[in-house]
Protein backbone atom coordinates (compact mmCIF):
# COMPACT_ATOMS: atom_id res chain seq x y z
CA UNK A 1 0.00 0.00 0.00
CA UNK A 2 1.46 3.34 -1.06
CA UNK A 3 1.17 5.90 1.73
CA UNK A 4 1.40 9.49 0.52
CA UNK A 5 4.33 11.52 1.74
CA UNK A 6 2.11 14.07 3.49
CA UNK A 7 0.56 11.35 5.70
CA UNK A 8 3.93 9.83 6.50
CA UNK A 9 5.22 13.27 7.46
CA UNK A 10 2.23 14.22 9.56
CA UNK A 11 2.29 10.85 11.30
CA UNK A 12 5.92 11.60 12.11
CA UNK A 13 4.91 14.92 13.66
CA UNK A 14 2.15 13.25 15.67
CA UNK A 15 4.82 10.88 16.98
CA UNK A 16 7.38 13.60 17.52
CA UNK A 17 5.09 15.93 19.46
CA UNK A 18 4.06 12.97 21.57
CA UNK A 19 7.64 11.88 22.21
CA UNK A 20 8.84 15.42 23.03
CA UNK A 21 5.91 15.75 25.45
CA UNK A 22 6.90 12.46 27.02
CA UNK A 23 10.53 13.57 27.28
CA UNK A 24 9.41 16.60 29.28
CA UNK A 25 6.91 14.59 31.30
CA UNK A 26 9.46 11.89 32.13
CA UNK A 27 11.98 14.51 33.31
CA UNK A 28 9.41 15.84 35.74
CA UNK A 29 8.70 12.24 36.72
CA UNK A 30 12.32 11.92 37.80
CA UNK A 31 11.97 15.12 39.85
CA UNK A 32 8.80 13.76 41.49
CA UNK A 33 10.27 10.47 42.60
CA UNK A 34 13.47 12.08 43.89
CA UNK A 35 11.54 14.82 45.68
CA UNK A 36 9.27 12.27 47.39
CA UNK A 37 12.33 10.38 48.56
CA UNK A 38 13.77 13.58 50.01
CA UNK A 39 16.83 13.28 47.73
CA UNK A 40 16.09 16.34 45.66
CA UNK A 41 14.34 19.51 46.72
CA UNK A 42 12.43 21.60 44.25
CA UNK A 43 13.49 24.52 46.41
CA UNK A 44 16.81 24.77 44.60
CA UNK A 45 14.79 26.18 41.73
CA UNK A 46 12.99 29.47 41.98
CA UNK A 47 9.51 28.11 42.46
CA UNK A 48 10.15 26.28 45.74
CA UNK A 49 7.53 23.70 46.61
CA UNK A 50 5.12 25.21 44.13
CA UNK A 51 6.98 23.35 41.46
CA UNK A 52 6.23 19.91 42.95
CA UNK A 53 2.54 20.20 42.10
CA UNK A 54 3.27 22.09 38.91
CA UNK A 55 5.71 19.32 37.94
CA UNK A 56 3.16 16.69 38.86
CA UNK A 57 0.59 18.38 36.62
CA UNK A 58 3.11 18.49 33.77
CA UNK A 59 4.07 14.86 34.34
CA UNK A 60 0.45 13.67 34.23
CA UNK A 61 -0.91 15.87 31.46
CA UNK A 62 2.07 15.58 29.08
CA UNK A 63 2.52 11.83 29.49
CA UNK A 64 -1.01 10.61 29.93
CA UNK A 65 -2.94 13.00 27.68
CA UNK A 66 -0.68 14.71 25.14
CA UNK A 67 1.80 11.90 24.36
CA UNK A 68 -0.88 9.24 24.15
CA UNK A 69 -3.43 11.21 22.12
CA UNK A 70 -0.96 12.43 19.51
CA UNK A 71 0.75 9.06 19.18
CA UNK A 72 -2.47 7.08 18.97
CA UNK A 73 -4.10 9.34 16.36
CA UNK A 74 -0.97 9.20 14.16
CA UNK A 75 -0.55 5.43 14.51
CA UNK A 76 -4.21 4.73 13.80
CA UNK A 77 -4.07 6.81 10.60
CA UNK A 78 -1.45 4.43 9.26
CA UNK A 79 -3.32 1.32 10.43
CA UNK A 80 -6.50 2.64 8.77
CA UNK A 81 -4.90 3.32 5.39
CA UNK A 82 -2.89 0.10 5.39
CA UNK A 83 -5.74 -2.20 6.44
CA UNK A 84 -8.48 -0.60 4.31
CA UNK A 85 -6.14 0.26 1.41
CA UNK A 86 -8.04 3.50 1.10
CA UNK A 87 -7.01 7.15 1.47
CA UNK A 88 -8.07 9.31 4.40
CA UNK A 89 -9.33 12.82 3.77
CA UNK A 90 -6.22 15.00 3.68
CA UNK A 91 -7.97 18.23 4.73
CA UNK A 92 -9.44 16.58 7.81
CA UNK A 93 -6.04 15.11 8.74
CA UNK A 94 -4.54 18.62 8.75
CA UNK A 95 -7.53 20.18 10.52
CA UNK A 96 -7.37 17.55 13.26
CA UNK A 97 -3.61 17.96 13.69
CA UNK A 98 -3.59 21.74 13.96
CA UNK A 99 -6.60 21.79 16.30
CA UNK A 100 -4.74 19.39 18.59
CA UNK A 101 -1.53 21.43 18.35
CA UNK A 102 -3.25 24.74 19.21
CA UNK A 103 -5.07 23.07 22.12
CA UNK A 104 -1.85 21.57 23.45
CA UNK A 105 0.01 24.89 23.22
CA UNK A 106 -2.74 26.70 25.12
CA UNK A 107 -2.87 24.10 27.90
CA UNK A 108 0.95 23.85 28.07
CA UNK A 109 1.29 27.64 28.36
CA UNK A 110 -1.13 27.64 31.29
CA UNK A 111 0.71 24.83 33.09
CA UNK A 112 4.25 26.09 32.44
CA UNK A 113 3.35 29.54 33.73
CA UNK A 114 1.85 28.00 36.88
CA UNK A 115 -1.67 29.12 35.96
CA UNK A 116 -3.01 25.56 35.81
CA UNK A 117 -1.50 23.61 38.67
CA UNK A 118 -4.57 21.43 38.97
CA UNK A 119 -2.97 17.99 38.44
CA UNK A 120 -3.98 15.60 35.71
CA UNK A 121 -7.50 15.17 37.10
CA UNK A 122 -8.20 18.96 37.23
CA UNK A 123 -10.93 18.48 39.84
CA UNK A 124 -12.67 21.60 41.08
CA UNK A 125 -12.48 23.45 43.41
CA UNK A 126 -8.84 23.60 42.18
CA UNK A 127 -9.16 26.21 39.48
CA UNK A 128 -7.07 26.67 36.33
CA UNK A 129 -6.75 29.51 33.85
CA UNK A 130 -9.44 29.24 31.12
CA UNK A 131 -6.66 28.61 28.58
CA UNK A 132 -6.05 25.19 30.17
CA UNK A 133 -9.67 24.10 29.82
CA UNK A 134 -10.02 25.57 26.32
CA UNK A 135 -6.75 23.89 25.28
CA UNK A 136 -7.90 20.52 26.62
CA UNK A 137 -11.19 20.95 24.74
CA UNK A 138 -9.38 21.69 21.47
CA UNK A 139 -7.14 18.65 21.92
CA UNK A 140 -10.23 16.48 22.27
CA UNK A 141 -12.09 18.16 19.40
CA UNK A 142 -9.03 17.59 17.20
CA UNK A 143 -9.12 13.89 18.01
CA UNK A 144 -12.87 13.81 17.21
CA UNK A 145 -12.03 15.15 13.72
CA UNK A 146 -9.63 12.21 13.32
CA UNK A 147 -12.45 9.86 14.35
CA UNK A 148 -14.81 11.45 11.82
CA UNK A 149 -12.18 11.02 9.11
CA UNK A 150 -11.69 7.37 10.00
CA UNK A 151 -15.43 6.61 10.08
CA UNK A 152 -16.00 8.31 6.70
CA UNK A 153 -13.12 6.33 5.19
CA UNK A 154 -14.48 3.07 6.58
CA UNK A 155 -18.01 3.78 5.34
CA UNK A 156 -16.65 4.42 1.84
CA UNK A 157 -14.68 1.17 2.06
CA UNK A 158 -17.87 -0.67 3.04
CA UNK A 159 -19.68 0.73 -0.01
CA UNK A 160 -16.87 -0.43 -2.26
CA UNK A 161 -16.56 -3.84 -0.57
CA UNK A 162 -20.09 -5.08 0.12
CA UNK A 163 -20.22 -8.28 2.17
CA UNK A 164 -16.55 -8.13 3.14
CA UNK A 165 -15.60 -8.37 6.79
CA UNK A 166 -13.85 -5.36 8.32
CA UNK A 167 -10.15 -6.30 8.60
CA UNK A 168 -9.37 -7.24 12.24
CA UNK A 169 -6.85 -4.39 12.85
CA UNK A 170 -9.58 -1.99 11.78
CA UNK A 171 -11.90 -3.49 14.40
CA UNK A 172 -9.28 -2.48 16.97
CA UNK A 173 -9.18 1.05 15.50
CA UNK A 174 -12.97 1.35 15.82
CA UNK A 175 -12.98 -0.01 19.37
CA UNK A 176 -10.30 2.52 20.37
CA UNK A 177 -12.16 5.44 18.86
CA UNK A 178 -15.60 4.31 20.06
CA UNK A 179 -14.34 4.18 23.65
CA UNK A 180 -12.57 7.55 23.28
CA UNK A 181 -15.54 9.33 21.72
CA UNK A 182 -18.11 8.11 24.24
CA UNK A 183 -15.71 8.74 27.14
CA UNK A 184 -14.80 12.26 26.08
CA UNK A 185 -18.49 13.24 26.02
CA UNK A 186 -18.39 13.21 29.84
CA UNK A 187 -15.37 15.46 30.18
CA UNK A 188 -16.63 17.71 27.36
CA UNK A 189 -19.82 18.35 29.36
CA UNK A 190 -17.72 19.01 32.48
CA UNK A 191 -15.40 21.47 30.74
CA UNK A 192 -17.85 23.28 28.48
CA UNK A 193 -20.80 23.67 30.87
CA UNK A 194 -19.06 23.95 34.23
CA UNK A 195 -15.29 24.54 34.25
CA UNK A 196 -14.95 27.17 31.50
CA UNK A 197 -17.86 29.38 32.73
CA UNK A 198 -16.52 29.08 36.30
CA UNK A 199 -12.89 29.86 35.38
CA UNK A 200 -14.00 32.80 33.20
CA UNK A 201 -15.87 34.21 36.21
CA UNK A 202 -19.27 33.98 34.50
CA UNK A 203 -20.57 31.83 37.37
CA UNK A 204 -19.20 31.72 40.92
CA UNK A 205 -20.36 28.31 42.04
CA UNK A 206 -19.47 24.80 40.99
CA UNK A 207 -20.51 21.34 42.17
CA UNK A 208 -17.26 19.40 42.79
CA UNK A 209 -19.00 16.04 43.08
CA UNK A 210 -20.85 16.48 39.80
CA UNK A 211 -17.59 17.54 38.12
CA UNK A 212 -15.75 14.51 39.58
CA UNK A 213 -18.44 12.16 38.34
CA UNK A 214 -18.28 13.64 34.85
CA UNK A 215 -14.48 13.45 34.95
CA UNK A 216 -14.47 9.75 35.87
CA UNK A 217 -17.03 8.98 33.17
CA UNK A 218 -14.03 9.95 30.99
CA UNK A 219 -11.10 9.20 33.27
CA UNK A 220 -11.29 5.43 33.47
CA UNK A 221 -12.37 4.60 29.90
CA UNK A 222 -9.38 6.76 28.95
CA UNK A 223 -7.29 3.80 30.16
CA UNK A 224 -8.72 1.66 27.35
CA UNK A 225 -8.05 4.40 24.81
CA UNK A 226 -4.40 4.06 25.86
CA UNK A 227 -4.47 0.30 26.01
CA UNK A 228 -6.33 -0.76 22.86
CA UNK A 229 -3.73 0.54 20.36
CA UNK A 230 -1.13 -1.42 22.37
CA UNK A 231 -3.41 -4.49 22.11
CA UNK A 232 -3.65 -3.82 18.37
CA UNK A 233 0.14 -4.07 18.13
CA UNK A 234 0.28 -7.14 20.38
CA UNK A 235 -2.43 -8.96 18.43
CA UNK A 236 -1.60 -8.03 14.85
CA UNK A 237 2.15 -7.26 14.78
CA UNK A 238 3.82 -9.18 17.60
CA UNK A 239 2.98 -12.80 16.60
CA UNK A 240 4.67 -12.31 13.23
CA UNK A 241 7.68 -10.59 14.81
CA UNK A 242 7.94 -13.65 17.09
CA UNK A 243 7.92 -15.89 14.01
CA UNK A 244 4.41 -17.32 14.43
CA UNK A 245 0.75 -16.53 14.01
CA UNK A 246 -2.08 -15.05 16.01
CA UNK A 247 -3.79 -18.02 17.68
CA UNK A 248 -7.41 -16.89 17.25
CA UNK A 249 -8.58 -14.01 15.07
CA UNK A 250 -12.31 -14.32 16.00
CA UNK A 251 -11.39 -14.17 19.70
CA UNK A 252 -9.48 -10.94 19.02
CA UNK A 253 -12.60 -9.45 17.39
CA UNK A 254 -14.79 -10.48 20.35
CA UNK A 255 -12.24 -8.95 22.75
CA UNK A 256 -12.35 -5.56 21.00
CA UNK A 257 -16.17 -5.64 20.91
CA UNK A 258 -16.24 -6.42 24.66
CA UNK A 259 -14.09 -3.36 25.24
CA UNK A 260 -16.64 -1.19 23.41
CA UNK A 261 -19.34 -2.53 25.73
CA UNK A 262 -17.62 -2.63 29.10
CA UNK A 263 -14.98 0.12 29.03
CA UNK A 264 -17.45 2.89 29.71
CA UNK A 265 -19.76 2.21 32.69
CA UNK A 266 -16.88 1.75 35.14
CA UNK A 267 -15.62 5.19 36.22
CA UNK A 268 -17.39 5.19 39.59
CA UNK A 269 -14.87 2.70 40.95
CA UNK A 270 -12.62 5.78 41.29
CA UNK A 271 -15.28 7.29 43.55
CA UNK A 272 -15.82 4.47 46.04
CA UNK A 273 -14.98 6.88 48.88
CA UNK A 274 -17.03 9.78 47.51
CA UNK A 275 -20.24 10.85 49.25
CA UNK A 276 -23.44 11.43 47.31
CA UNK A 277 -23.50 8.22 45.27
CA UNK A 278 -25.44 5.21 46.54
CA UNK A 279 -23.63 2.01 47.48
CA UNK A 280 -25.81 0.06 45.05
CA UNK A 281 -24.59 1.92 42.00
CA UNK A 282 -21.00 1.88 43.19
CA UNK A 283 -21.35 -1.92 43.48
CA UNK A 284 -22.90 -2.16 39.99
CA UNK A 285 -19.95 -0.28 38.48
CA UNK A 286 -17.53 -2.41 40.53
CA UNK A 287 -19.12 -5.50 38.93
CA UNK A 288 -18.88 -3.98 35.46
CA UNK A 289 -15.20 -3.18 36.10
CA UNK A 290 -14.67 -6.90 36.68
CA UNK A 291 -16.44 -7.50 33.37
CA UNK A 292 -13.92 -5.32 31.57
CA UNK A 293 -11.15 -7.53 32.99
CA UNK A 294 -12.59 -10.46 30.98
CA UNK A 295 -11.37 -9.29 27.54
CA UNK A 296 -7.94 -8.66 29.04
CA UNK A 297 -7.87 -12.21 30.43
CA UNK A 298 -8.92 -13.55 27.01
CA UNK A 299 -6.10 -11.48 25.54
CA UNK A 300 -3.59 -12.97 27.97
CA UNK A 301 -4.56 -16.47 26.81
CA UNK A 302 -4.74 -15.65 23.10
CA UNK A 303 -1.35 -13.93 23.10
CA UNK A 304 0.28 -16.63 25.22
CA UNK A 305 -1.02 -19.21 22.73
CA UNK A 306 0.29 -17.11 19.82
CA UNK A 307 3.73 -16.87 21.43
CA UNK A 308 3.64 -20.60 22.19
CA UNK A 309 2.90 -21.26 18.52
CA UNK A 310 5.89 -19.10 17.54
CA UNK A 311 8.13 -20.76 20.12
CA UNK A 312 7.21 -24.24 18.87
CA UNK A 313 7.74 -23.19 15.24
CA UNK A 314 11.21 -22.11 16.34
CA UNK A 315 11.90 -25.56 17.76
CA UNK A 316 10.78 -25.25 21.37
CA UNK A 317 9.10 -28.20 23.07
CA UNK A 318 7.82 -29.28 26.47
CA UNK A 319 5.20 -27.41 28.50
CA UNK A 320 7.29 -24.22 28.73
CA UNK A 321 10.36 -25.06 26.62
CA UNK A 322 9.04 -22.87 23.80
CA UNK A 323 9.60 -19.73 25.88
CA UNK A 324 13.39 -19.81 25.61
CA UNK A 325 13.30 -20.16 21.81
CA UNK A 326 11.46 -16.85 21.38
CA UNK A 327 13.48 -13.90 19.95
CA UNK A 328 14.26 -12.17 23.24
CA UNK A 329 17.12 -10.17 21.66
CA UNK A 330 14.86 -8.60 19.02
CA UNK A 331 14.11 -5.03 20.13
CA UNK A 332 10.57 -5.22 18.70
CA UNK A 333 9.84 -8.40 20.62
CA UNK A 334 11.45 -7.15 23.84
CA UNK A 335 9.63 -3.83 23.47
CA UNK A 336 6.24 -5.53 23.33
CA UNK A 337 6.60 -8.67 25.44
CA UNK A 338 8.36 -6.71 28.23
CA UNK A 339 5.31 -4.44 28.65
CA UNK A 340 3.01 -7.48 28.44
CA UNK A 341 4.82 -9.14 31.34
CA UNK A 342 4.62 -5.96 33.41
CA UNK A 343 0.95 -5.65 32.50
CA UNK A 344 0.24 -8.99 34.21
CA UNK A 345 1.08 -7.27 37.52
CA UNK A 346 -0.68 -4.07 36.45
CA UNK A 347 -3.79 -6.15 35.83
CA UNK A 348 -4.04 -7.69 39.29
CA UNK A 349 -3.30 -4.39 41.02
CA UNK A 350 -6.15 -2.93 38.95
CA UNK A 351 -8.50 -5.69 40.10
CA UNK A 352 -7.61 -4.75 43.68
CA UNK A 353 -8.49 -1.13 42.89
CA UNK A 354 -11.81 -2.18 41.39
CA UNK A 355 -12.86 -4.35 44.34
CA UNK A 356 -15.33 -2.31 46.36
CA UNK A 357 -14.12 -3.51 49.76
CA UNK A 358 -10.39 -4.13 49.13
CA UNK A 359 -10.11 -0.73 47.45
CA UNK A 360 -10.36 0.81 50.94
CA UNK A 361 -6.87 -0.49 51.75
CA UNK A 362 -5.23 1.28 48.83
CA UNK A 363 -7.60 4.15 47.99
CA UNK A 364 -5.71 7.37 47.17
CA UNK A 365 -2.41 5.89 48.35
CA UNK A 366 0.92 5.43 46.58
CA UNK A 367 -0.40 2.04 45.43
CA UNK A 368 -2.30 3.84 42.64
CA UNK A 369 0.72 5.39 40.84
CA UNK A 370 2.48 2.04 41.34
CA UNK A 371 -0.43 0.43 39.50
CA UNK A 372 -0.80 2.83 36.62
CA UNK A 373 2.90 3.04 35.85
CA UNK A 374 2.63 -0.68 35.07
CA UNK A 375 -0.44 -0.17 32.86
CA UNK A 376 -0.38 3.10 30.92
CA UNK A 377 3.20 3.86 31.98
CA UNK A 378 4.52 0.59 30.58
CA UNK A 379 1.96 -1.55 28.73
CA UNK A 380 0.92 1.42 26.59
CA UNK A 381 3.88 3.81 26.70
CA UNK A 382 6.60 1.20 26.11
CA UNK A 383 4.63 -0.40 23.30
CA UNK A 384 4.19 3.01 21.68
CA UNK A 385 7.92 3.72 21.91
CA UNK A 386 8.59 0.37 20.26
CA UNK A 387 6.03 1.26 17.59
CA UNK A 388 7.89 4.53 17.00
CA UNK A 389 10.94 2.49 15.90
CA UNK A 390 8.74 0.29 13.71
CA UNK A 391 7.01 3.31 12.16
CA UNK A 392 10.34 5.02 11.43
CA UNK A 393 11.39 1.88 9.57
CA UNK A 394 8.09 1.36 7.74
CA UNK A 395 7.37 5.00 6.87
CA UNK A 396 10.87 6.36 6.28
CA UNK A 397 13.06 3.29 5.74
CA UNK A 398 15.17 4.09 8.80
CA UNK A 399 16.01 1.14 11.00
CA UNK A 400 17.01 1.99 14.59
CA UNK A 401 20.47 3.49 14.81
CA UNK A 402 21.31 0.86 17.44
CA UNK A 403 19.14 -2.23 17.79
CA UNK A 404 21.12 -3.24 20.88
CA UNK A 405 20.32 0.05 22.61
CA UNK A 406 16.66 -0.38 21.60
CA UNK A 407 16.62 -3.80 23.28
CA UNK A 408 18.49 -2.49 26.32
CA UNK A 409 15.99 0.34 26.67
CA UNK A 410 13.11 -2.16 26.78
CA UNK A 411 14.59 -4.41 29.47
CA UNK A 412 15.92 -1.55 31.57
CA UNK A 413 12.46 0.01 31.64
CA UNK A 414 10.90 -3.31 32.69
CA UNK A 415 13.36 -3.70 35.57
CA UNK A 416 12.99 -0.03 36.55
CA UNK A 417 9.22 0.02 36.57
CA UNK A 418 8.96 -3.24 38.54
CA UNK A 419 11.27 -1.80 41.25
CA UNK A 420 9.45 1.55 41.20
CA UNK A 421 6.00 -0.02 41.33
CA UNK A 422 6.97 -2.44 44.09
CA UNK A 423 8.24 0.43 46.24
CA UNK A 424 5.18 2.57 45.58
CA UNK A 425 2.72 -0.25 46.17
CA UNK A 426 4.36 -1.26 49.45
CA UNK A 427 4.10 2.37 50.52
CA UNK A 428 0.45 2.32 49.49
CA UNK A 429 -0.19 -0.77 51.59
CA UNK A 430 1.28 1.18 54.52
CA UNK A 431 -1.23 3.96 53.83
CA UNK A 432 1.23 6.50 52.41
CA UNK A 433 -0.71 9.00 50.27
CA UNK A 434 -0.16 9.73 46.63
CA UNK A 435 0.25 13.24 45.14
CA UNK A 436 1.95 14.62 48.25
CA UNK A 437 5.40 16.19 48.59
CA UNK A 438 6.48 13.63 51.16
CA UNK A 439 10.14 14.60 50.92
CA UNK A 440 9.26 17.60 53.10
CA UNK A 441 7.27 15.67 55.71
CA UNK A 442 8.89 15.15 59.13
CA UNK A 443 6.77 12.11 60.04
CA UNK A 444 8.10 9.40 57.70
CA UNK A 445 9.49 6.37 59.54
CA UNK A 446 12.63 4.47 58.51
CA UNK A 447 10.79 1.69 56.65
CA UNK A 448 8.86 4.25 54.63
CA UNK A 449 12.01 6.21 53.84
CA UNK A 450 13.66 3.01 52.57
CA UNK A 451 10.65 2.23 50.38
CA UNK A 452 10.75 5.79 49.01
CA UNK A 453 14.42 5.19 48.19
CA UNK A 454 13.57 1.91 46.41
CA UNK A 455 10.91 3.70 44.35
CA UNK A 456 13.50 6.38 43.53
CA UNK A 457 15.98 3.73 42.31
CA UNK A 458 13.26 2.37 40.00
CA UNK A 459 12.45 5.88 38.82
CA UNK A 460 16.09 6.62 38.01
CA UNK A 461 16.35 3.38 36.00
CA UNK A 462 13.17 4.30 34.08
CA UNK A 463 14.54 7.75 33.35
CA UNK A 464 17.86 6.27 32.18
CA UNK A 465 15.98 3.84 29.95
CA UNK A 466 13.98 6.68 28.41
CA UNK A 467 17.17 8.69 27.86
CA UNK A 468 18.69 5.74 25.96
CA UNK A 469 15.52 5.50 23.86
CA UNK A 470 15.40 9.24 23.20
CA UNK A 471 19.01 9.48 22.00
CA UNK A 472 18.64 6.33 19.87
CA UNK A 473 15.37 7.59 18.37
CA UNK A 474 16.72 11.08 17.58
CA UNK A 475 19.81 9.67 15.85
CA UNK A 476 17.50 7.34 13.89
CA UNK A 477 15.39 10.31 12.81
CA UNK A 478 18.39 12.23 11.50
CA UNK A 479 20.23 9.36 9.81
CA UNK A 480 19.90 8.51 6.13
CA UNK A 481 17.29 5.89 5.07
CA UNK A 482 18.49 2.28 4.85
CA UNK A 483 16.39 1.57 1.74
CA UNK A 484 15.46 3.38 -1.46
CA UNK A 485 12.55 5.85 -1.75
CA UNK A 486 10.64 3.44 -4.02
CA UNK A 487 10.75 0.77 -1.32
CA UNK A 488 9.80 3.24 1.41
CA UNK A 489 6.60 4.26 -0.39
CA UNK A 490 5.19 0.72 -0.30
CA UNK A 491 4.29 0.70 3.36
CA UNK A 492 3.48 -2.74 4.73
CA UNK A 493 2.96 -3.00 8.46
CA UNK A 494 3.19 -6.80 8.04
CA UNK A 495 0.07 -7.71 9.97
CA UNK A 496 0.17 -11.24 11.25
CA UNK A 497 -1.57 -14.27 9.80
CA UNK A 498 -3.83 -16.29 12.12
CA UNK A 499 -3.93 -19.96 13.11
CA UNK A 500 -7.72 -19.80 13.56
CA UNK A 501 -8.70 -17.31 10.88
CA UNK A 502 -11.96 -15.44 10.52
CA UNK A 503 -13.98 -16.64 7.57
CA UNK A 504 -17.17 -15.71 5.75
CA UNK A 505 -19.23 -17.83 8.21
CA UNK A 506 -18.54 -15.32 10.97
CA UNK A 507 -21.92 -13.98 12.25
CA UNK A 508 -22.50 -10.59 10.63
CA UNK A 509 -23.52 -8.97 13.91
CA UNK A 510 -19.85 -9.25 14.92
CA UNK A 511 -19.07 -6.81 12.12
CA UNK A 512 -21.90 -4.39 12.84
CA UNK A 513 -20.49 -1.63 15.03
CA UNK A 514 -23.84 0.21 15.23
CA UNK A 515 -25.27 -2.59 17.38
CA UNK A 516 -22.34 -2.56 19.82
CA UNK A 517 -22.26 1.24 20.02
CA UNK A 518 -26.00 1.27 20.76
CA UNK A 519 -25.58 -1.28 23.55
CA UNK A 520 -22.62 0.69 24.96
CA UNK A 521 -24.73 3.88 25.03
CA UNK A 522 -27.60 1.94 26.65
CA UNK A 523 -25.24 0.62 29.37
CA UNK A 524 -23.91 4.14 29.95
CA UNK A 525 -27.42 5.55 30.40
CA UNK A 526 -28.63 2.70 32.62
CA UNK A 527 -25.60 2.83 34.92
CA UNK A 528 -24.90 6.57 34.99
CA UNK A 529 -28.54 7.76 35.02
CA UNK A 530 -29.15 6.75 38.67
CA UNK A 531 -25.69 8.01 39.66
CA UNK A 532 -26.39 11.49 38.30
CA UNK A 533 -29.80 11.35 39.99
CA UNK A 534 -28.00 10.66 43.31
CA UNK A 535 -25.46 13.43 42.71
CA UNK A 536 -28.10 16.03 41.82
CA UNK A 537 -30.25 15.00 44.78
CA UNK A 538 -27.59 15.04 47.48
CA UNK A 539 -24.85 17.49 46.42
CA UNK A 540 -24.90 21.12 45.36
CA UNK A 541 -22.77 23.87 43.83
CA UNK A 542 -20.62 25.99 46.14
CA UNK A 543 -18.91 29.37 45.53
CA UNK A 544 -15.38 27.99 45.92
CA UNK A 545 -12.17 28.11 43.91
CA UNK A 546 -8.71 27.26 45.24
CA UNK A 547 -5.11 27.03 44.15
CA UNK A 548 -2.61 24.66 45.84
CA UNK A 549 -0.55 27.64 47.01
CA UNK A 550 -3.14 29.68 48.88
CA UNK A 551 -5.55 28.56 51.61
CA UNK A 552 -7.96 31.41 50.87
CA UNK A 553 -10.97 31.08 48.63
CA UNK A 554 -10.28 32.76 45.27
CA UNK A 555 -13.97 33.65 44.91
CA UNK A 556 -14.48 36.98 46.66
Amino acid at each position, binding site marked *: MKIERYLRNITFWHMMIGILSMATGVTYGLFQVLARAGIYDYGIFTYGTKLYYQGLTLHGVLNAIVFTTFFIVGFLYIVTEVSLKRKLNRGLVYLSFWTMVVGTLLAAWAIFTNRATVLYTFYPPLQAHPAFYIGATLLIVGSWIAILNTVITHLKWRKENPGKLTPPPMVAVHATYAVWFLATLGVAIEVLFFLIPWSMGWVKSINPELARTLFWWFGHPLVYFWLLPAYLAWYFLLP*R*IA*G*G*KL*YSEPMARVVFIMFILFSLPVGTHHQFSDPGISNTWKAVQAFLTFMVAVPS*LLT*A*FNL*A*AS*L*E*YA*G*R*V*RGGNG*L*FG*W*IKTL*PWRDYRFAGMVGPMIVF*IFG*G*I*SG*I*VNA*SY*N*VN*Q*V*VHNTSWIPGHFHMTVGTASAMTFLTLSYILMEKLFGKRPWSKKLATLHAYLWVVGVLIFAWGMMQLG*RAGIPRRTHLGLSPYMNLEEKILMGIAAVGGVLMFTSFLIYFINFLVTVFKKPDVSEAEIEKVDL*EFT*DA*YHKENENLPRYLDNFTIWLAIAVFLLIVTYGPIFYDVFRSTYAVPNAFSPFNPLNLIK
Partner: protein
Amino acid sequence: MMENRDLKDFKPKGAVAFFIAMILMYAVMWFSIYALLIISRGG
Protein backbone atom coordinates in the same frame (compact mmCIF):
# COMPACT_ATOMS: atom_id res chain seq x y z
CA MET B 1 11.37 -11.25 9.40
CA MET B 2 11.42 -14.99 9.95
CA GLU B 3 9.64 -17.22 7.42
CA ASN B 4 6.68 -18.84 9.15
CA ARG B 5 6.10 -22.56 8.86
CA ASP B 6 2.82 -24.14 9.85
CA LEU B 7 2.17 -26.39 12.81
CA LYS B 8 -0.62 -28.92 12.37
CA ASP B 9 -3.00 -29.76 15.25
CA PHE B 10 -1.47 -27.14 17.50
CA LYS B 11 -2.84 -27.36 21.04
CA PRO B 12 -1.72 -24.45 23.27
CA LYS B 13 -1.02 -26.57 26.36
CA GLY B 14 1.71 -24.21 27.55
CA ALA B 15 -0.63 -21.22 27.22
CA VAL B 16 -3.32 -23.04 29.23
CA ALA B 17 -0.77 -23.83 31.96
CA PHE B 18 0.46 -20.21 31.92
CA PHE B 19 -3.11 -18.95 32.19
CA ILE B 20 -3.91 -21.18 35.18
CA ALA B 21 -0.67 -20.12 36.90
CA MET B 22 -1.52 -16.47 36.28
CA ILE B 23 -5.00 -16.84 37.79
CA LEU B 24 -3.53 -18.59 40.85
CA MET B 25 -1.01 -15.78 41.28
CA TYR B 26 -3.82 -13.24 40.94
CA ALA B 27 -5.76 -15.04 43.67
CA VAL B 28 -2.77 -15.03 46.03
CA MET B 29 -2.15 -11.30 45.46
CA TRP B 30 -5.80 -10.33 45.82
CA PHE B 31 -6.27 -12.33 49.02
CA SER B 32 -3.09 -10.86 50.52
CA ILE B 33 -4.61 -7.38 50.19
CA TYR B 34 -7.94 -8.72 51.45
CA ALA B 35 -6.09 -10.09 54.50
CA LEU B 36 -4.71 -6.60 55.15
CA LEU B 37 -8.26 -5.27 55.09
CA ILE B 38 -9.42 -7.88 57.59
CA ILE B 39 -6.42 -7.25 59.87
CA SER B 40 -6.92 -3.48 59.74
CA ARG B 41 -10.55 -4.01 60.81
CA GLY B 42 -9.38 -6.10 63.78
CA GLY B 43 -10.66 -9.37 62.27
